[in-house]
């Protein structure tokens, strides 16, 4: 059976069917991500001063991934244009680059950025004990600068067994630069380049700690929203890559040979989805990495 209106416009809508289909789907996607983003805004606006972390993500890596996604958005539209011009070989090259970009994005995200977070440790200090850890927090300095306080000490956890063993009474942490030298004005604002934990060891007694975990979704609302939104976004990237691979493989050449416009329309629809994924990232990047 021939599926109708894959190329020709349906008389009553003026569009081929998949075009309306993808836009209705994208409309629902807008609501899906919209709900998560409004949840993010809600959590962030309600966070107490000092409790919404800044500068925890690697900005150059995030910028690189942003550039990769933008480049792939260009190549997918060029792949579509190549089909329109009946240049199949060129289409395959552009589509290949798009797929590669999507894979690079995922590898950077899942292979580098996320695991680096799982290896990082942070301890929220109880409000009554903040003064005791002034040497790591530098809150007197921050107050004189009119900046929100620091309430967390982070770095590389030396005694990981402390997380689960109630007999160990303190965490030994190789401090992040911001906690190693908290009154340095250079630490007032996040760094552009990632700075690894220092050699300086800080000891934090468990009884002074409100909450201490690795940088997992459970660590705080920031990481909960970060992992949720980038995870869902990553799933979209993965889905796009899989669809693109199908369109790049020889099976799709048969569609092209039967009717080149049919494949062009498929690529356009998949491209619309891909641009939407890029569009979401345009908001994710500044909200989580920069602000």
């Amino acid at each position, binding site marked *: 059976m021939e599926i109708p209106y894959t*190329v020709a416009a349906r008389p009553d809508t003026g569009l081929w069917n998949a075009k*309306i289909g993808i836009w209705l789907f994208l*409309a629902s996607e807008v609501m899906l991500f919209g709900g998560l983003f409004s949840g993010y805004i809600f959590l962030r606006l309600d966070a107490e001063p000092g409790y919404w972390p800044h500068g925890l993500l690697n900005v150059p890596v995030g910028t690189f991934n942003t550039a990769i996604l933008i*480049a792939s958005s260009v190549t997918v539209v060029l792949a579509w*244009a190549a089909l*329109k011009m009946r240049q199949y070989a060129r289409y395959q090259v552009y589509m290949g680059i798009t797929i590669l970009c999507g894979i690079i994005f995922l590898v950077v995200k899942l292979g580098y950025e996320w695991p680096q977070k799982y290896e990082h440790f942070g301890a929220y200090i109880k409000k009554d004990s903040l003064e005791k850890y002034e040497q790591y927090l530098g809150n007197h300095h921050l107050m004189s600068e009119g900046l929100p306080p620091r309430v967390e000490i982070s770095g590389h956890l030396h005694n990981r067994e402390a997380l689960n063993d109630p007999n160990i009474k303190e965490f030994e942490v190789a401090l992040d630069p911001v906690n190693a030298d908290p009154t340095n004005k250079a630490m007032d604002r996040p760094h552009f380049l990632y700075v690894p934990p220092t050699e300086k060891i800080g000891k934090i007694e468990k009884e002074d700690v409100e909450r201490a975990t690795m940088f997992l979704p459970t660590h705080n609302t920031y990481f909960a929203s970060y992992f949720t939104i980038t995870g869902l976004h990553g799933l979209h990237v993965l889905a796009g890559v899989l669809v693109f691979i199908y369109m790049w493989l020889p099976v799709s050449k048969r569609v092209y040979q039967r009717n080149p*416009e049919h494949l062009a329309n498929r690529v356009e629809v998949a491209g619309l989805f891909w641009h939407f994924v890029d569009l979401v990232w*345009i908001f994710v990047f500044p909200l989580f990495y920069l602000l």
Partner: protein
Amino acid sequence: MNNPPEVAQDAAEHEHYAHEVAHHVKKYMMVGATLLLFTGITVALSYVDFGTRKANIAVAMLVAMFKAGLVAAIFMHLSAEKKLIYRVLIFTGLFVFALFWLTFLAWYDPVHH
């Protein structure tokens, strides 16, 4: 651009059409370059202190909306699309607006704060 004139089994017509597409390709490259440039600008602006963090967020969101607008208008062809698509998207826009408005409404709840 989106719905080619009942594409072109006629060779001359198709050649004209292909030429038009080639013209659009340059535009796509330019938009891509602009997006990359504005990504750099977003990063740079986040290290400029605009007084309050809220001001910084506002600036970053303005740049992001400009970039998103470019993607939607050019890459997603929304600058020249059929009416039905706009009709669908108007409702989406309204619902998203309501969604975000609810969030702010909850935040300004005088009982809670």
